[in-house]
């Protein structure tokens, strides 16, 4: 880890120097503290860490420095659920490209020298001096893809097929209505009739329901046999 950080620190120094950014020494101190953290930190938390190390910085200054690091690609900013900005440093020396699954948020790292060289080449041909790069491919990972293939709208289920509701899509009022009538995610359904058009009849427990095709299309199900009661539900981070 140590030498990666040194490498990053050097790059940072060089870059900030070129850009004639003020208070370089203080900012480098903040960088050091930041590089030593291994999780997402907020500006507040970093200020606290620095204070504990005996270096009192104003929070706005810390925030500004973090923003600078983000702008030059040293840090990544995330806004999680509660809306607070958190920063995470990027391991620039230990370079990987990433594939990020938008469904389960899994990150797959990969490296390919052909890609790296190609990037260098392209930058050169534009007369561009490349300091670093970031390569992120967003998509759906193989695992989620496999799950998704099992999923289908209820309308695609055949007569006699047993399925499990995996997701209710559509507006909140139609979802609420289904829920209050007793059709919810993870409920088991049996298709009683499905003519391939028009309404269909499904059984859930001892109840039977007539569903309009439009609504049935918004109920995402999975065949029963493969599904465990709450099996492949989205595992959010």
């Amino acid at each position, binding site marked *: 880890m140590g030498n990666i950080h040194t490498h990053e620190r050097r790059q940072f120094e060089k870059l900030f120097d070129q850009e004639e950014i003020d208070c370089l020494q203080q900012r480098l101190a903040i960088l050091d503290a930041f590089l030593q953290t291994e999780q997402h930190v907020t500006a507040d938390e970093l200020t606290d860490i620095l204070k504990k190390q005996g270096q009192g910085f104003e929070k706005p200054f810390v925030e500004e420095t973090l923003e600078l690091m983000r702008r030059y690609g040293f840090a990544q900013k995330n806004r999680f659920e509660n809306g607070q900005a958190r920063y995470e440093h990027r391991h620039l020396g230990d370079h990987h490209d990433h594939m990020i699954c938008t469904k389960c948020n899994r990150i797959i790292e990969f490296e390919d020298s052909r890609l790296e060289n190609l990037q260098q080449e392209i930058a050169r041909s534009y007369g561009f001096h490349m300091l670093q790069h970031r390569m992120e491919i967003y998509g759906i990972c193989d695992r989620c893809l496999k799950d998704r293939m099992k999923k289908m709208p209820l309308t695609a289920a055949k007569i006699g097929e047993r399925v499990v509701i995996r997701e209710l899509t559509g507006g909140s009022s139609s979802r609420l209505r289904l829920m209050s009538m007793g059709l919810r995610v993870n409920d088991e359904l049996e298709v009683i009739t499905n003519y391939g058009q028009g309404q269909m009849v499904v059984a859930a427990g*001892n109840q039977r329901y007539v569903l309009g095709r439009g609504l049935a299309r918004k109920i995402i199900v999975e065949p029963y046999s493969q599904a465990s009661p709450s099996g492949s539900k989205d595992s959010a981070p």
Partner: protein
Amino acid sequence: MDSRQIRIALTGNPNSGKTTIFNHLTGTRQKVGNWPGVTVEKKEGDIEKFGCQLKIVDLPGTYSLTPFSIEEIVARDYILEDRPDVVIDIIDASNLERSLYLANQLRELDCKVIFALNMADLARSRGYKIDGEKLSELLGVPVVFTVGNKKEGLDELLKTAVEYAESGTGIPESRKVRYSKDIEKAISEVREELESRIGPDFPYNRRWTAVKLLEDDTIIKQRLEKLLGTDSAQVLEKAQQLRDKLADLFHEEPEIVMTDERYGFIAGILKEVVTTSSRRRVDISRNIDLVLTNRFLGFPIFIFFIWAMFQITFTVGAYPMAWLDAGISALSSGVDALLPPGVFESFLLEGVIAGVGSVIIFLPNIVLLFFCIALFEDTGYMARAAFLMDRIMHLIGLHGKSFIPMLMGFGCNVPAIMATRALESRKDRILTVLITPFMSCSARLPVYIVLAGTFFAAYAGTVIFLLYLSGVVVAIVTGRLFRVILLKGEDAPFVMELPPYRLPMLKSLLIHMWDRSKMFLKKMGGVILVGSIIIWVLSAYPKAIDYSVDYGARMDQVHAEYAEKIASAPAAEARKLEEERTARIADLRRAKRIEHAEKSYLGRIGRFVSPVFEPIGMDWRGSVAILTGFVAKEVVVSTMGVLYAAEGDAESDALHRALRNSGMTSLAALSMMVFVLLYLPCLATVAVINRETGTRWMILSVVYTTAIAWLAAFFIYQGGRLLMA
């Protein structure tokens, strides 16, 4: 004795057995009315029990108190605004989880709730055992077990309700649904904001109001605006902010999260109170559904049931019809014998008895039809029929549910239009109301029988069947047209629960049947009676008519002539001469009557409007008959009886003969039948349409049906003439 009045509201999921319990509790002492402002049926019953006056109100069956449909709004408003002393929630014990959803919403509302765990026997047979005491303890609510269809537990239920109403306790705060931390925080923030602006007389539970605001309940938001005026803005804004925040936090609408959490709460309760044995019975209803909604079998079976229904209605109905007919004849001859001839007698015989009598003989048909429909409903088959008809109804852009009112339309359009209330979307309702009058009601049948019987003797059955079919086709075309032009469909998400198949109970069948037949009888008592009297007045007056011939003198002349002849003739010939005399007198009388009819007010009106009807092949008599048919279509026949035959009753051969002799062609008869099928619904139907949809739609219906009827008759008559020429 203490005669305190206690108001008890019955609520529960559809198919929870609520109606059965209501019927058993109130018996025949039911009042059916309307909820104010909306067209949802309101049923009430007053009974006396335990020294108290109990007013039992049957709220519409709902799955929740979230205002998706009029029913839910009505049910919630009643509890919120009218504050019944006790609310009894009828819970289908075999489907406890879902039932508890509504039950918990009631608890949140801060009203006194009693749970009636209904159909506990069914639950047991399905392998669930419910610990009522534990449930009562956990939720802080009295729990009574009932078996509605066997009347078990109903007395105890009422007793508990009375005791609970008189006790001061409500649901303890600690037993209510608790949401997760973030939601609870938001609730209390909204509540604080709310409490800082409201007075002590704020009508709703505060926590509940806060919950509803977070759920973005439009109705509660409107109420708040009304109650607080400009002060409401801040509260609403606060709620909106918190909603957004919660939505960000959960990646989900707060109302969905809260629904999930309510179910979570319910799951916890179920774990405590229900023990499930592994024994699982075969679900018979499911197996029946596999057959009755089957792709290939479903439809033929459905057609068979409908066919059987009409068979029963018309063949079995023919017997009581004959009895009624005989009864009416007996009544008229009785009145004839008792009263001295004069205006009053004529009024009673020709106005009241003939008018109402011609309609009342359809009562058996209608009662039987409604009995069959009640049978379909109570067994649960109607919901399947609606499902099967769905694809056909989609041609019009309606759901299968609209088929039910249309089916009833074959009996009487009035209850049929009332039955459209079961439809959720207002546009669907209006559209169904507009096409239902094309269903040939039983009142139109006698017109067909007389005309088709006279002019198409051998093919009468086929002609009548084709008329019924044409009505259905016109309904479909009209539906399609209006759907495209006037009532562009928002295709609302459709979900309906299929009720389990149940053995119908005679009592509830009879109550259903009677409720609807009553509408028919009311129509008779009111509209048709008044209409018959008006027609009688119009046809009987003016008394002083300037006859073209002095009939009195002619008759005297005939009498004198024959008196002479008979006196001089031998005995054998005298009898023959006497018969001749009677016939001539009768001819004169008939001629006088026809002339009277022609010159009466009715005749004058007929002559005035006949130019309109001429292009469709009708003379002034036909025109008058059609005009009077507006009162009730049955009246067409009796008017024809007066105008054409003028002797004997309308159904007799006399009318057939007279019609044939009147110069009416079979083409004109066909044109008239089509006109009667399609033209404006009777007065009672118009009144119902007006009440259910508003004046504008009523006017549209009247104008449209009449225009279609005239055009259809015009094309048939003129087209037929061209073809024959």
